[in-house]
């Protein structure tokens, strides 16, 4: 008996890995670079190969399939190899370059913000820059202030960069494929906690794109709109589940792209529900959450029954100590409190 709804479950890690494998098979211009993306570099002759596979094992197995020419371990020189990604993207390759954690952006930010982001504009459009940067982010794993930031907000600030934040294995695969095929530089932000969560979502085997710049409605609702970004979509959805038990119907928007941002989907929802809670793990000041709050206030002012509310961490670095870090994070409880606030 054939079930029409058979689901193919992959973990977030497997989904990214599959996307990379499929795109590398499809297009010889796709290469992967980063620290320990393969592991044990240069020791193939000793039978040592693929001994690491990236910090999250996202790139495991690629070197055995595609060889050391296209899957390159790099020295710890982010400005060097991300800059190299820019040059390679400008001259015929489609590099996927890994910045291990987004907190390290500061050692290579110039390559991203001054070269990748601006080259097309500065050159009068006479260049395409199909570069994908993938990076890990997120708190909750006790790795303290320099390894736990979220930071998509600062990349969103820069014109010329696209930013995508998958929220589960399905969107991870689709957005990774779209990022690779996109002719502009795209940063893909992988939340580390999502890698540990088993999500019961169907991930088609064939390659598919998820459109950059489009949000999706993860859960429909009438009373309030919750906007989540990556991991906080998961939090918002959990909150929505609990709220449903209390008879509150929350719509959950999964933002997925921070730049370009799908303003219509947000506005259309808020115009219906007339209330919005934005859930964002990034620092609160000058954040994507601020942007969405401002967007809604400016463009849906007459529809709002209550002021927008943001659920961000406080304006502090990420603390190490577990109880403090737990307080730091957005949680379903905090979302529910915010919903109660806007429900009046």
């Amino acid at each position: 008996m054939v079930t029409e709804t058979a689901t193919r479950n992959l973990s977030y890690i497997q989904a990214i890995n599959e996307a990379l494998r499929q795109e590398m098979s499809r297009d010889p211009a796709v290469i992967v670079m980063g620290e320990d993306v393969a592991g044990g570099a240069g020791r193939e002759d000793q039978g040592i190969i693929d001994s690491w596979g990236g910090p999250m094992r996202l790139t495991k197995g690629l070197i055995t399939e595609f060889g050391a020419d296209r899957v390159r371990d790099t020295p710890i020189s982010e400005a060097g190899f991300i800059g190299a990604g820019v040059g390679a993207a400008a001259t015929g390759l489609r590099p996927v370059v890994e910045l291990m954690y987004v907190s390290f952006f500061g050692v290579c930010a110039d390559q991203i913000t001054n070269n990748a982001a601006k080259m097309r504009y500065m050159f009068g459009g006479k260049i395409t820059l199909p570069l994908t940067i993938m990076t890990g982010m997120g708190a909750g794993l006790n790795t303290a202030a320099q390894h736990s930031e979220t930071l998509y907000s600062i990349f969103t600030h820069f014109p010329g960069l696209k930013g995508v934040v998958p929220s589960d294995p399905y969107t991870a695969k689709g957005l990774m494929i779209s990022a690779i095929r996109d002719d502009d530089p795209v940063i893909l932000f992988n939340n580390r906690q999502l890698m540990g969560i088993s999500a019961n979502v169907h991930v088609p085997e064939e390659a598919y794109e998820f459109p950059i710049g489009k949000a999706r409605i993860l859960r429909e609702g009438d009373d309030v709109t919750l906007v989540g970004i990556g991991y906080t979509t998961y939090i918002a959805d959990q909150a929505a589940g609990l709220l449903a038990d209390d008879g509150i119907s929350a719509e959950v928007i999964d933002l997925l792209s921070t730049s370009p941002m799908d303003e219509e989907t947000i506005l259309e929802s808020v115009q219906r529900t007339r209330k919005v809670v934005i859930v964002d793990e990034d620092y609160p000041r000058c954040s994507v959450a601020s942007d969405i709050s401002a967007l809604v206030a400016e463009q849906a002012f007459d529809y709002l029954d209550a002021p927008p509310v943001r659920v961000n961490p406080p304006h502090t670095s990420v603390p190490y100590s577990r109880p403090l870090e737990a307080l730091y994070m957005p949680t379903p409880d905090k979302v529910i409190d915010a919903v109660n606030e806007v429900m009046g």
Partner: protein
Amino acid sequence: MATTTIGIDRDTLLWMYKTMVIIRRFEEQSKREADAGKLRGMHSSIGQEAVPVGVCAHLRDDDYVLGTHRSHHHCIAKGLDINQMMAELLGKSTGTNKGKGGTMHIADIDKGMLGANGVVGSNIPVATGVGLSAKVRGTDQVSVVFFGDGAANQGTLHEAMNLAGIWKLPVIFVCENNRYAESTPVEYSVAGESIAARAEGYDMPSVIADGQSVLEMYEIGGEAVARARAGDGPTFIEAQTYRYHGHFGADDPLAYRTQEEEDYYEARDCISTMVSYLLENDVLAQDEIEAIDAAALADVVEATRFADESPFPNDGELTTDVYISYA
């Protein structure tokens, strides 16, 4: 005479001489435009013409050059159209970059000029990636990056040299040591005996070249390009040269350097020494030299006319080219 005594064919000698003269005339004109307030903050390459000319004489259109804030000479040496360049300086729609980049960002991917760059040291890793691209795509293209003595103190150089070293990339690092970064003398800012010496820490062949001699630059550049094309890895060239003008036109260089030093370098001017060479070796006669000079001047006059008469970009251009598809 197809080839001169030093083994450089006549066409190449002529091309090198002519290109240096065009650069000089172009830069004189751009300074006039700047002085007239038609552009701001342009960095003159006068005095440094020989460096890119000697190296680029070995390059094909599909090889790549990457530059700095001071890159008009790199662009002309790589074969860019000076009409479009002058139009770019004036922010016109007919410019190499449609007027959106300006003096510090001139680029023309079809000619292999992957851009001047306003951030000191920023293009060095990019050039390394261009070399990587050639290697992965299996071509014999070469990537040349020019940068200043000041840029040699940016960490990007170190990272890029290491990458080019371990991956044996076809990258040529050309440091135009013109002795100053703005007003800062190289002997103050650079620890160690030379900039070239640093390349040794990366197992890279390195050489100090007389950047005032286009013939020497040609010879050394040729070796480096041959090495890169053959897949034998990167080369570091420290070209000792001098910028005759101030850093960006509004500063008085004698506030931080001496007349004697200026005189020393101007006496070894790359163009006048080349004229002597061409005459002494009967490559060209005086009237042929004059004809080349006159033609160069006429080209620059024409470029200026072209630029002046070109329109500014229309307003819609403000929001195009941000992404492939935006506005």
